């Protein structure tokens, strides 16, 4: 009997590393949210720039928030890394829906959304598999708000056809609806307002422009901005400049804020 227990304990210790490996999940699912890492291509090869996406599926009525949630909620955080290099990748965030509840603005995702990202695999890459890791943190709300975090890990072999559940060709279709990283733009500050001039790229009309400053308090968004066109420039006159109650912010503060706006807040 004693030997039997020793044998069991021995087997448990031998198998423990395999159990731990199997604990690394490829997807996360609870009754409110499902999170997966998917490939846009059925076969992945070295020497290619590969397109993947974090697919988030929300149960009916539930929502999560954009990187800037607005007046309530928590930002959704998606951080990706791979075995190709040590770089952290932040995927593209699609345009969220704008919700105004009694003047409380929130920026939300409902239903299904893709958060795409690219990985370039050099031809000289040594490994036989591409490993992608995701850390995700979110607050999912309907009548109540529930926080969540997960770590996912996906291992994809090169040059073999991937399992069907790991591939979604809709990722590429969705890319065309994505906000541009930044549009060429400049800003001029005046005492009571700022002019944001966005250069419209030839033959490309702006379908929608989404603007929500990360540095709160700089622009007075209680007043709607004025939009006008001058040649190939879109002029947005923003009521401003109020940094925590202090008028005429220093150019340093403004330029910092504008950098953030350029990086995160202008979509065309």
């Amino acid at each position, binding site marked *: 009997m004693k030997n039997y227990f020793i044998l069991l304990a021995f087997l448990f210790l031998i198998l423990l590393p395999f159990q731990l490996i199997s604990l690394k999940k490829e997807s996360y699912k609870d009754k409110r949210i499902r999170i997966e890492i998917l490939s846009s291509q059925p076969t992945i090869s070295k020497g290619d720039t590969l397109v993947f996406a974090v697919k988030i599926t929300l149960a009916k009525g539930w929502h999560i928030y954009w990187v800037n949630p607005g*007046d309530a909620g928590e930002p959704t955080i998606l951080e990706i890394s791979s075995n190709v290099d040590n770089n952290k990748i932040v995927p593209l965030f699609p345009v969220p829906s704008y919700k105004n509840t009694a003047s409380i603005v929130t920026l939300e995702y409902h239903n299904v959304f893709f958060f795409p990202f690219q990985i370039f695999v050099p031809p000289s890459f040594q490994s036989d598999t591409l490993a992608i890791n995701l850390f995700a*943190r979110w607050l999912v709300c309907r009548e*109540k*708000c529930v926080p969540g975090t997960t770590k996912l890990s996906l291992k994809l072999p090169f040059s073999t056809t991937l399992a069907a559940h790991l591939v979604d060709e809709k990722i590429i279709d969705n890319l065309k609806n994505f906000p541009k990283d930044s549009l060429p733009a400049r800003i001029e500050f005046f005492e009571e307002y700022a002019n944001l001039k966005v250069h419209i790229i030839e033959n490309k009309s702006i379908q929608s422009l989404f603007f929500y400053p990360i540095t*709160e*308090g700089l622009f007075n968004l209680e007043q709607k901005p004025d939009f006008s066109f001058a040649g190939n420039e879109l002029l947005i006159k923003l009521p401003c400049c109020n940094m925590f109650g202090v008028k005429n912010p220093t150019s340093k503060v403004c330029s910092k804020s504008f950098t953030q706006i350029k990086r995160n807040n202008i979509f065309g």
Partner: protein
Amino acid sequence: MFKNAIRLFALLLTIQFLFSQEAKIDQKAPDFTLHDIVGMDFPLSDYRNKIVVLEWINFDCPYVQKHYKSGNIPNMQAEYTKKGVYWFSICSSAPGKQGNLPVGEIRKRIKEYNAKMTSYLLDEDGKVGKMYGAKTTPHFFIIDKDGTLVYSGAVDDIASTDIEDIKKARNYVREVLDALLNGEKPKIKTTKPYGCSVKY
């Protein structure tokens, strides 16, 4: 005789139940559900395995204003929520009492102070405030990942409304949160809270 014994037993059980709902250091933090300014419910039980800060707040209280106008509390909110801490600011001011603000005004103050709490929760009937024994604004309660209440007390050790004192003060909330984030047991468990009385 037997009936009286049963009555006494029932009374003791009731008393034990009532007391078990009170927040006590080193014991499980009592559960509650409060809603935010949008009307979303935040059940504490959904924040298991997370570090949670409960901060009693009243934006009209000069002690609260000291820590918000200086950026002291908003900076902590921004720093620690990025590190995975959930920070709930709870207002237990009864309707008509100081600090019970309309939603638009709450939103305005949050923007004005650049506050970064996870959520501003409303406790108008004061049930949660009384359950936790919140006495002042601000008054902090910190819950560890096991759901145990590990700290109750002040934000720091200088009980004043002077912003200049913040630099000189020992920040208890930072000490507790840093310890928890490092996987250590906080060295302090209770301090005397200071501020305005909660307007129940």
